[in-house]
């Protein structure tokens, strides 16, 4: 199987890669947001305003 074949997914590339990309983006965004929320909560609990 060539790289081009792998990415074309037998003509279903948009649907297959669209699904995997949606999951990857959503999970990456959730990790970033939750980490930011924890950092902000630490700052507030430590008596400081969260830095911008």
């Amino acid at each position: 199987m060539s790289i081009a074949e792998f990415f074309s997914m037998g003509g279903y590339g948009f649907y297959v890669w669209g699904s995997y990309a949606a999951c990857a983006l959503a999970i990456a965004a959730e990790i970033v947001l939750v980490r930011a929320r924890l950092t902000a909560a630490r700052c507030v609990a430590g008596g400081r305003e969260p830095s911008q």
Partner: protein
Amino acid sequence: MNWFRFASPASFYPLAARLTPWFGGAAAVFAAAGLYLGLIAAPTDAQQGESYRIIFVHVATAWMSMFIYLVMAFWCAMSLMFNARLAAMMAQALAPTGALFTALALITGALWGKPTWGTYWAWDARMTSELILLFLYFGYMALRQAIDEPRRADRASALLALVGAVNVPIIYFSVKWWNTLHQGASVSLTSAPTMAAVMLAGMLLMALAAWFYSIAIALTRVRAIILERERHAGWAGEVALAAKAAR
């Protein structure tokens, strides 16, 4: 070891911090193995061609969307029965991840439906009940947001979550109870799975990855919630300062 010690947010916080990297690491390992099996090792499906590879993310997210709701409802019941703060915080921490997986199940399902059935969406029992699940998560989060006093928000949202739990068996059995466009279950506890072993292994690995990811992200979010809600307690300030010193 007294496990009830961990029902207190102050002692649960460091435990959650210690466990998170292990669950996150396990999620990454299982996802890598599942992606390898699903995208490279598994053969092309005889009927659907390559488009079937969507099921590796679709099934994992759909299972998680229902399972997280059940776990959330369990913590809601615990918070109502024992008036336990930490149980309510666990439910609060699970809801956004549950909503995310529900949305992903709907999106990946639509992307599978278009090439397979010729439509992104149909008002079929399985899809409609899954959409209702998304609205239940949104309703739970909106109700929490709308009530300023946290303990009152805990009770009201817990009640909503418990009533909404009726929807989960409806989603699960919808393909049996109604004549749906969505296919029946290929994997169940009562019969042998109707798919090739390598496809099944890839699907189960992705499901395990989703489990461990959900645990890791919920433990991280619950730490933020604990600090937000307990910020006036002395220990929360100490935790925050210790985290600062460790960096």
